[in-house]
């Protein structure tokens, strides 16, 4: 029996060898990943020994913090606070809870804010020798304080009684996000309190609230765009069919895509494009459904989809801050299905999709991108939230560089679209967005949503002066009912005026 006993000894050695190898895997190879894993409560605990960096927005020539850490007498030395109008910025800052996973900028730039990022390595090294615990790095946003708060307050106090809404304002030439507001919102201070029971109670309350205050409607939810889709159809007609704004297109009081098919498209009001034909520019100005439905069918689903993708639809990878799995993402907008059961274009579907109904869904961010692209001569700039990252000693460690994402239309077509959108604001459905002394263009949208709820109200538009775009904006009012798009237009005008003031152009 001694031979097998010796072999059992070897088996025991092998078992322990496996344990040893596996421990090497866990404690050596994976050690760094585990040590900094977001589920590791120790990370948070040790993080609270350092002062976390601030998140700041632009206010005039300066920056003001919208998130900062203050010293306390608790076990956790620093407490995270959102001092400035917290609900207006919650969709941007997110929150950094004691136990749990941070969100938004707090998550996207977690390493930098906490001082663990590679870019701050030299600071950490210095700390080893000097013994001073330095604070984390600062994140300076592109957000403008007055624009953001104007957008948020206008949403809260909108005249349509819409409870949910979103505003996105971009600098069309760079893609810098000047404002990104969503309602309803929440107070992130309630989630970052050191009383973890109160914090999780607050979180649970927000999370279960049917109004979904934690949801950023500007980037995380899509809605039918209504007539704002007509800008895409116009772009496709100008590009693929060689039209110009004065090209005459078929219109009329009603349009039946499949004769005898039982489905007919009407205009919002009998006074809109009652004649058999209309110029393209007038069709957009009046928001002529029958004209654009026929134009869409003439283009065909493929060209409509291609142009929509050119403007950023179906983009799965768009982020506005951070990298990898911590990035702040924008959910893709979709054109949806336009084919029937036989795999061919279904004219009914194409017609409906061309006026932003059927399965077309966009984020308010996508709406702002469409306007910004037109304003910027056809070049779509990557939208971004972070202007620069600043080390604790206030030296800049990284500065965002504007980047062209795509060019769906050429300069000439963009010029035509500007002319047409300007006409909408000058003499069409968007007159409430007029700003004296500036060139303003845009497109309203009213999207049917369901039988019971009111229609969504949209406005996407831009403002420029001397041929130079200043701001592009999208305003969305969910279930605003009749007059929703007019109210959205008014808010857009308000926001653009604020940007003009902030730029010192007036």
């Amino acid at each position: 029996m001694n031979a097998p006993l010796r072999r059992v000894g070897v088996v025991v050695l092998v078992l322990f060898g496996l344990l040893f190898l596996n421990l090497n895997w866990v404690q050596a190879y994976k050690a760094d990943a585990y040590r900094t894993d977001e589920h590791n409560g120790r990370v948070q605990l040790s993080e609270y020994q350092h002062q976390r960096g601030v998140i700041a927005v632009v206010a005039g020539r300066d920056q003001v913090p919208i998130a900062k850490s203050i010293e306390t007498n608790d076990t956790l030395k620093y407490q995270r606070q959102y001092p400035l109008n917290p609900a207006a910025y919650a969709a941007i800052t997110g929150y950094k809870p004691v136990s749990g996973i941070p969100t938004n900028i707090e998550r996207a730039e977690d390493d930098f804010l906490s001082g663990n990022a590679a870019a701050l390595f030299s600071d950490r090294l210095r700390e080893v020798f000097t013994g001073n615990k330095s604070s984390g790095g600062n994140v300076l946003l592109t957000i403008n304080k007055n624009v953001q708060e104007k957008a948020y307050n206008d949403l809260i106090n909108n005249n349509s009684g819409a409870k949910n809404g979103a505003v996105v304002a971009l600098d069309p030439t760079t893609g810098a996000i000047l404002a990104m507001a969503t309602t309803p919102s929440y107070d992130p201070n309630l989630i970052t309190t050191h009383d973890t029971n109160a914090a999780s109670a607050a979180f649970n309350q927000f999370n279960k609230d049917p109004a979904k205050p934690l949801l950023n409607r500007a980037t995380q939810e899509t809605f039918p765009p209504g007539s704002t889709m007509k800008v895409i159809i116009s772009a496709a007609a100008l590009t693929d069919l060689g039209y110009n704004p004065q090209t005459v297109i078929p219109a009329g009081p009603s349009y039946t895509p499949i004769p005898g098919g039982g489905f007919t498209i009407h205009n919002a009001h009998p006074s809109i494009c009652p004649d058999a034909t209309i110029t393209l520019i007038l069709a957009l100005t009046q928001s002529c459904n029958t004209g654009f439905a026929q134009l869409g069918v003439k283009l065909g689903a493929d060209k409509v989809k291609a142009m929509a993708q050119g403007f950023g639809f179906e983009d799965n990878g768009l982020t506005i801050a951070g990298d990898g799995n911590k990035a702040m993402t924008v959910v893709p907008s979709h054109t949806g299905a336009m084919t029937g059961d036989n795999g061919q274009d279904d004219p009914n579907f194409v017609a409906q999709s061309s006026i932003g109904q059927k399965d077309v869904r966009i984020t308010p961010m996508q709406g702002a991108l469409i306007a910004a692209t037109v304003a910027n001569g056809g070049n779509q700039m990557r939208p971004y939230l972070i202007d620069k990252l600043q080390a604790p000693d206030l030296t800049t460690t990284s500065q965002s560089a504007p980047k062209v994402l795509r060019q769906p239309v050429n300069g000439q077509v963009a010029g035509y679209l500007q002319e047409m959108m300007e006409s909408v604001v000058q003499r069409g459905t968007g007159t409430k967005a007029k700003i004296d002394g500036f060139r303003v263009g845009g497109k309203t949208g009213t999207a049917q949503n369901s039988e019971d709820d009111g229609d969504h109200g949209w406005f996407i538009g831009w403002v420029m002066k001397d041929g130079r775009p200043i701001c592009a904006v999208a305003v969305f009012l969910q279930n605003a009912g009749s007059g929703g798009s007019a109210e959205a237009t008014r808010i857009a005008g308000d926001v653009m005026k604020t940007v003009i003031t902030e730029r010192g152009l007036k």
Partner: protein
Amino acid sequence: MTASAAPLASPSAPSATAGFRMPTRRNSELVLLLLAMVVVTAYAGAVEYALVGKVSADFWIQPFLLLLVFLATHVGLRFLAPYADPAILPAVALLNGLGVAFLRRLDLGRTSAPQRADLGALSGDGFRQLIWTLAAIIVSMVALWVVRDHRVLSRYAYTLGLTGIVLVMIPAVLPASLSEVNGAKLWIRFGSFFQIQPGEFAKILLLSFFAYYLVRKREVLALASRRFLGIDFPRGRDLGPVLLVWVLSLLVLVFEKDLGTSLMYFGMFVVTLYIATERVSWLIIGLLLFFGGAFLAYVLGAAFGGPFANFHERVIIWLDPFKDANGDGFQLVQSLLGLGTGGLFGSGPGRGIPYMADIHRFILPEVQNDFIFAGFGEEIGLFGLTALLMLYLVIAERGLRAAIAVRDSFGKLMAGGLAFTLALQVFVIVGGVTKLIPLTGQTTPFLSAGGSSLMANWLLIAMLLRVSDASRRPASVGTGGGSAPVKLAGLATEVMR
């Protein structure tokens, strides 16, 4: 039998020189034991310094009590098992002492910083573990005193085996409210205060029976009938016993919801079977049966749930604990994160953070029981854990050494089985908390808080020491304590392999 040691130390060789005394090595044991206690005291002192900021007079109470207890054990061995292996007791005492010190560390960690200095040395889990250690050692010494010759056990093999089976079954038939802790039905609970894990004791009893049974049947079981791929396979009808134990262990898996215990019993049986018969085919059959059974339980758990659901869930967690890191996977995830945070060298004794910001909630659940190894891992790192593993390895290999050296088959099987069982238990629990295998509810021998585990493992060590003593004792000296050797019919004529 092969003479494994130096010729002079060979137990079968009668000493030629009159007056020559076989060295008992008790003094080596004393030196090693004192060394172990120095390590334990240094560790406990480092913990105290890290958490309280000073080493008070009060601190010395626990290390001193531990020293007294283990010195008494050492003195007891001088009388009860003078020829026992000198490395086993110090290794076990070191593990046990570190366990007490770590539980004390958790007591301190649970207390808010200003009150730590006032936490009495005679309170908390650490002190309770110390008392359990004392009780376990007293029971073990009594066992050594009663069992003067391990072969006595074979006389009561059926009684012991039956008792073992009953102990295994009790938690399975008890309602969950009286037997379930953390999803595993392994316990007998009397209220929330007192709970024992009868399976811990059952493994020793079952092993005595296995050893007895296999000594009787080994010739039959070793008969080969078919040769396949160069390996001799047993006759179909001889598969009976192994199938029976297999079914039993699967029942354990299903009704006690614990893969670890099931794996332990079955592994224990298969290995003793292999040692007895020297047929590799038994190992292969055993492994195939076990993995087949486990796979079947997994598939059934996925398809039907019911009694198999728990096992299926454990496997799912094991495959990707981070998928539900705050839910089902929480324990394993936190265990891995703790180990990873410790890294190579650990944060230092008392300098880890097994608890949450509000200090009353531990980040690492069950850190005093199932996850004590992970708790250690954060503070003593890969190097420290490797040292702990080496201690277990020393105990297991020394146990196997005793099995090789002892003269009778029953003793060989008994010691070999016990040593392997201990190693297997360490493998199952450490493998579980480090995600090598699915996590199960085993205790970590000598480290985990809890009386039944401690007592059962000390009894296991007592039996190993008993066999080890027999293996190294010169034939002329007689059994420990001078009583007459026990005669067992049949043993004298046994063919040694």
